[in-house]
């Protein structure tokens, strides 16, 4: 994965740039020491690393605005960073860039149960948003699996999803408003505690724009009252096709579970060895969860089990109590950790139309043989968001490159069957060069034109999302203007 060469004129002005940043931030909020900037050299895509020119940790919207204004005047690229949990390299710096971390901005600004929203600073972690409202029995719905660590800022940048978005939607469906700081320091309010936009839906454009259009410092998020209860059921099948057909039948029957999770045999075997959740050894395993009162849960499960039985499951396991429910989820929730125990792995994030599931799994199996790399599949089956985990050995020369090539082929397959490259992780640098497989040149051009409007000098996270070749002329205009 290539990154642009750093601009020598910026590197040579480091002292001056840092001095200017120190005029608007407290001393401990500007990090420039070469050892300390190492902490910001990568995100969760750890295969790529580069310490930034400096890192800044502003504590308010005004400080963010001051930092951006200075970087704008100095022509310095800025890479916004939440908690650094991106699997796509969204927060990977270049040597000539300033990392703008929002970690110090984690306050709750307003909680309003009557109108069902919470206003937070975006450095706050996803799980602690729910933590702030759960004593009143409310919750914030999007639940990416990194929710203990990931920041709302990054959730907005990547439009994060989670296991429960079949019912509750992803970040964009739960985001009501933001305070956005533009690259020149201008502060704007988009949306708020009301619904929809009086003009263009700029909030909708900001969500998922990977920190390329502005820095989001505050967010108004929809909160919901917690359901009375939830219960999962586990089903095992002999064939992926049958499990896929079962998912489709449940959905067609008009039942909307909050989650439908799918694991294939390699994934079941790995998690069993690790977590010993007592899963049946079979080709495909489904965990279906429904919510509501005791009566409602019983009514929904009755129908789901009736549908499942028609598909001759090898296992059908209901949770009688919280303890059994916990065991059903145990293996799924430790799947990634289990894979990490036995191997290095790369986690993909393509989405496919649900009905293409059996075909795509078969093709992935064939490719796995061709590449000689194992792959385990775990994914959100209700919405077609796949997470194939490709196993490789980081210490073996060439294995990472082989794994990346395999991953790219899987993502191309997702596009080929009518899906997309990324469902909830974002493009970052990881899928940047595959964008031309999903979009025609004109489709990318109009997206870049949107960045032109928000960030005419292309200083915000410039080397992400778009293939470097496509964005080169725009990034060069910026360099030439200095």
């Amino acid at each position: 994965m290539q990154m642009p060469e750093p601009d020598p004129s910026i590197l040579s002005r480091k002292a001056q740039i840092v001095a200017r940043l120190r005029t608007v931030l407290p001393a401990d909020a500007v990090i420039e020491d070469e050892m300390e900037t190492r902490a910001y050299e990568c995100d969760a895509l750890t295969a790529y690393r580069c310490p930034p020119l400096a890192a800044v940790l502003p504590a308010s919207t005004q400080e963010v605005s001051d930092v951006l204004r200075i970087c704008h005047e100095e022509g310095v690229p800025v890479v916004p960073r939440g908690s650094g949990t991106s699997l796509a390299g969204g927060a990977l710096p270049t040597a000539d860039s300033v990392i703008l971390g929002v970690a110090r901005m984690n306050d709750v600004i307003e909680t309003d149960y009557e109108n069902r929203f919470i206003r937070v600073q975006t450095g706050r972690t996803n799980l602690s948003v729910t933590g702030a409202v759960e004593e009143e029995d409310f919750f914030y719905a999007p639940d990416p699996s990194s929710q203990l660590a990931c920041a709302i800022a990054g959730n907005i940048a990547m439009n994060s999803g989670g296991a429960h978005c079949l019912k509750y939607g992803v970040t964009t469906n739960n985001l009501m408003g933001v305070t956005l700081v533009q690259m020149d320091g201008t502060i704007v309010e988009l949306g708020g505690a009301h619904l929809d936009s009086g003009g263009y839906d700029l909030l909708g454009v900001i969500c998922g724009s990977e920190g390329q259009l502005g820095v989001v410092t505050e967010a108004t998020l929809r909160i919901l009252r917690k359901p009375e209860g939830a219960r999962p059921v586990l089903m095992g099948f002999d064939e992926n096709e049958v499990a896929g057909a079962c998912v489709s039948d449940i959905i067609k029957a008009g039942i909307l579970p909050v989650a439908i999770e799918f694991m294939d045999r390699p994934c079941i075997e790995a998690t069993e060895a690790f977590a010993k959740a007592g899963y049946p050894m079979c080709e495909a395993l489904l965990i279906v969860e429904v919510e509501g009162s005791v009566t409602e849960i019983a009514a929904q499960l009755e129908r789901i089990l009736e549908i499942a039985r028609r598909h001759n499951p090898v296992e059908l396991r209901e949770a009688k109590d919280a303890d059994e429910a916990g065991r059903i989820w145990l293996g799924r929730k430790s799947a990634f950790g289990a894979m990490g125990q036995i191997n290095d792995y790369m986690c993909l994030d393509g989405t496919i139309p649900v009905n293409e599931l059996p075909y795509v799994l078969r093709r992935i199996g064939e490719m796995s043989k061709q590449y000689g790399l194992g792959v385990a599949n775990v994914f959100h089956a209700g919405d077609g968001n796949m997470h194939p985990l490709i196993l490789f050995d980081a210490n073996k020369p060439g294995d990472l490159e082989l794994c990346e090539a395999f991953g790219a082929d899987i993502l191309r397959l997702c596009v080929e069957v009518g899906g997309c490259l990324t469902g909830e992780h974002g493009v970052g640098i990881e899928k940047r060069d595959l964008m031309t497989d999903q979009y025609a040149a004109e489709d990318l051009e109009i997206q870049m034109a949107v960045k032109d409007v928000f960030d005419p000098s292309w200083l915000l996270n410039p080397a992400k999302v778009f293939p470097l070749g496509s964005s080169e002329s725009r990034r060069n205009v910026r360099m030439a203007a200095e």
Partner: protein
Amino acid sequence: MRPESEADLAELIKAANGPLRVRGGGTRPIGAELDGSVLETGGLSGVTLYEPGALTVVVQAGTPVAELEQVLAAEGQRLPFEPMDHRALLGTSGTPTVGGMVAGNVSGPRRIQTGACRDVMLGVRFVDGNGTILKNGGRVMKNVTGYDLVKLMAGSWGTLGVLTEVAFKVLAEPETEATLVFRGKEPAAGVAALCAALGTPFDITGASHLEAGLDGDSARTQVRIEGMEASVSYRVKALQGGVLAGFDAVTGEDSARLWQEVRDVTPFAGHEGAVWKVSVKPGDAPALTAALRAQGLGFKAMYDWGGGLIWLLIPEAGDAGAARIRQEVARLGGHATLIRGSADLRARVPVFQPQPAPIAAIEAGLRQRFDPKGVLNPGLMAG
């Protein structure tokens, strides 16, 4: 002009050197009267792809909404956001199209639970002002591949591009519905009841309050529950035994009729006057109408979305309350759109909420990039 294919549409726009007025079914006219040739999208019609098991439908923009709804109903599914039919309120005839619905991000009472039209849009194809055919998003439910221009197209009223195809997430029709109704609450008490109901775990799919005089002499507060039989009756009882004590339950056709009235704002249909659509924080709604009345404005008001959407029917005199309404809305946070008014009024008063300068600059910048020749509904959303 009525192109029969996306390619023909692109050619027409490429060749255009004057303003085009983009039109679906012509049932939701908005804004000042524009000059220019009418460009109709009705020739681009039909469901392209429908996968009930994937909850996905792809449809051409000129397709009648009713036709799409029929196709979905045959599989027991529907558009989740309950789009309003504007014909009764605006006194228009014609056939509402998918493209018009999307261009206006038109949603109904269920918006509070399932999201707006924009929330279930998975992908779009459109032709920009240069005549270039573009696509964004796709037909899968989770997609963060590049910028989300799907949302941008929703509610842009044809000023950034002419839609040719839209993919939606659809949902199953519920087994049954019930509405809990109370007569005679003042707006503040009505909206408070709606907010309380929305704060329960009972998955409310409609929450409205009609002031006295809109449906008989007493005000009507109503809350809807949908789902499986057992579940609906459980929730009705739980609400009646809790925050909606004293509310009566209505079911079946009688329940559905109450929501069609709210969805289409029929209590205002056939009555003279301008109609505003105001979006604020739900709890602010009663104070907003009270403040406007205290300033001497006379109007009728209907609240949907738990109070977050206020429909106002107000005499056309002067600016039809524009200055006062917008001042209050700006103070509280929100926006007001003039949905109905005489041609004269629509020429005098900004129809869309005027935006602060930095946002207006972004909007103008986007128009300049998407429509550099300024041929697509020019001036409509320019403020």
